[in-house]
């Protein structure tokens, strides 16, 4: 009989003897069930990233009676030959969604209308005009269509204006509204690599403990099919304010998010594979520029991002796409660096470089492999600017956001020289991608 004194000491062994019975017989069944269960993302929100198929699926062909196959095949053969001859002589090839492409038009907004400008001739022509107040044109990766926003009456919950999103072909045809409900001006609009869907991130109430800055809100990430109008909410994530599709196939995307009020950077496969942590969430939420506007290199192997920590923000850093090898990009002494934009050919990185925390300077250009010298390029601006590379990497298009100029600048990345485009515009610009010659 067990005595009271030794009872408590014996209890673990007694319980083990009583209840431990070897490996339960449902082990294999359990493992199989788990193999069929997807994991949730690296935070505790009830929402999760939903699998997304960015490749247009094909509808299976209806079964055809064998007797008719011969006749149909013959007809199809003749039609295909005729069609191939027609397409070969009339239709241009389309560029791949990532990498170098040819330079097309520059879509821009001016006085509530959307225009296309030719950077070579200087000519412009209207794309969408009328009473609507249109802005923010964004060219699809294949260069065939332009998405833009049109203002509607009312104010969003965050105090910004409301817009509907439209899509139009570059020849002005096929204008259609793709948003069922108006979106806030604070929303972010970009094309998915398939040039069919639009990625829209709208701010919604968040769950994080982060206080104060507006980027503590959550971001609701929707993919809107511009063909059908169908919208799919992929995820709602604290702090989400951008997604970057990873070259070369866009099947993975990278984003920043708040976890327990701290910034981190993450990647997720759109097939439902688990979220990967690229940078641990340990940057205080009030440092709202940390990981802001991170960008993949042209080959998708590296990520350029603004790095901040308790010591301050920001310097330009780079990491491998798996989150390893993070280090400051070409450290050149005290400076504020950020907003890296890699060139499509993978050779260069343009970024905002403000040495010694002095007056705002402008764009600097460095080789992406961190060799060579830093080149100060383009005008010195009193404020900040929005900039992007020409699809063929031969120029940088810069539009000052500080009101210092109503015309965008074209900067030569080789020597830093610059000139203005031939037209005035509002601030929102993009550059149409077309197939490379040959």
């Amino acid at each position, binding site marked *: 009989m067990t005595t009271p004194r030794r009872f408590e000491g014996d209890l673990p062994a*007694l*319980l083990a003897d*009583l209840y431990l019975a070897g490996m339960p017989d449902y*082990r294999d069944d359990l493992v199989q069930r788990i193999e069929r269960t997807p*994991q*949730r993302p690296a935070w505790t929100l009830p929402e999760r990233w939903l699998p997304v198929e960015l490749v247009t699926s094909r509808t299976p062909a209806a079964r055809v009676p064998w007797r008719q196959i011969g006749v149909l095949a013959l007809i199809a053969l003749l039609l295909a030959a005729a069609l191939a001859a027609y397409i070969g002589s009339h239709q241009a090839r389309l560029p791949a969604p990532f990498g170098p492409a040819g330079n097309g038009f520059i879509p821009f907004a001016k006085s509530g209308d959307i225009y296309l400008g030719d950077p070579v001739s200087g000519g412009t022509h209207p794309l969408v005009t009328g009473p609507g107040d249109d802005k923010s044109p964004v060219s699809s990766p294949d260069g065939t269509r332009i998405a833009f926003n049109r203002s509607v009456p009312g104010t969003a919950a965050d105090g910004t204006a409301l817009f509907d999103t439209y899509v139009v072909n570059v020849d002005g045809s096929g204008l259609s509204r793709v948003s069922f409900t108006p979106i806030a001006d604070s929303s972010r609009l970009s094309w998915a690599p398939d040039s069919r869907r639009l990625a829209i991130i709208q701010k919604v109430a968040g769950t994080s403990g982060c206080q104060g800055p507006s980027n503590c809100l959550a971001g609701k990430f929707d993919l809107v099919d511009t063909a059908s109008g169908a919208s799919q909410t992929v995820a709602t994530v604290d702090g989400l304010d951008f997604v970057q599709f990873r070259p070369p196939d866009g099947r993975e995307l990278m984003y920043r998010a708040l976890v327990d009020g701290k910034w981190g950077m993450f990647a997720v496969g759109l097939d439902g594979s688990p979220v*990967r942590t690229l940078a641990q969430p340990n940057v205080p939420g009030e440092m709202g520029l940390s990981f802001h506007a991170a960008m993949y290199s042209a080959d998708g192997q590296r990520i350029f991002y603004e790095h901040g920590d308790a010591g301050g923000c920001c310097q330009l850093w780079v990491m491998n796409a798996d989150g390893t090898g993070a280090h400051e990009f070409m450290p050149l002494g005290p400076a504020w660096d950020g907003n890296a934009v890699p060139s499509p050919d993978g050779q260069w990185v343009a970024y905002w470089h403000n040495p010694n925390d002095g007056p705002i300077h402008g764009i600097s250009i460095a080789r992406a492999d961190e060799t060579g010298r830093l080149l100060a390029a383009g005008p010195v601006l009193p404020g900040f600017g929005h900039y992007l590379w020409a699809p063929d990497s031969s120029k940088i298009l810069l539009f000052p956001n500080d009101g210092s100029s109503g015309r965008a600048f074209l900067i030569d990345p080789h020597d830093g020289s610059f000139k203005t485009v031939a037209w005035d515009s509002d601030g929102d610009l993009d550059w149409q991608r077309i197939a490379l010659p040959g």
Partner: protein
Amino acid sequence: MDQRGTVERARRGDHDAFASLIDVHLARLDAAARLILRDPELARDAVQEALIRAWRDLPGLRDPDRFDAWLHRLTVNACLDLVRRRRRRVIEVELSPIDSPAAHDVAGDLADRQMLEEALAGLSPGHRAVVALHYLLGMPLPEVAASLRIPIGTAKSRLHYALGAMRTVVTAEPESVPAAVAGRNLA
């Protein structure tokens, strides 16, 4: 590879790594669930639910070194959730009279085990959860309290009560058996 590395791999979606974690923990989790629920089928349901949830939510686990405690908590809470869902189905347990000859005639471990099982049967699932976490899964009492989301004082009180009940039965002190032990509903 150490468990931390295995947890990291599982957190990145490695099914094999998670299967090896299952192999390490499953038997003891099943034992804890059977102790709490006193029903092998319910225990199986609770453990499967807990492990599937662990796999699903593993990317959200901040500290891989906390995997054991986290898994224990998921399992015990799955058990208690199951009890709550089945609360309408009251289970009556008939205990052998504590002064029955059988309780005293069988000596040694076998008698201890039988009496211990009887004593545990007389406890509530909440009390058994404290016993399972502390004595079967080796969790320190403050962590037991945190896992069950109860104050540390409540955890101590439950453990004291459970120990008293078990000790009384096992050491054959009939007059000091708490009234609650003598045949209670378990749910």
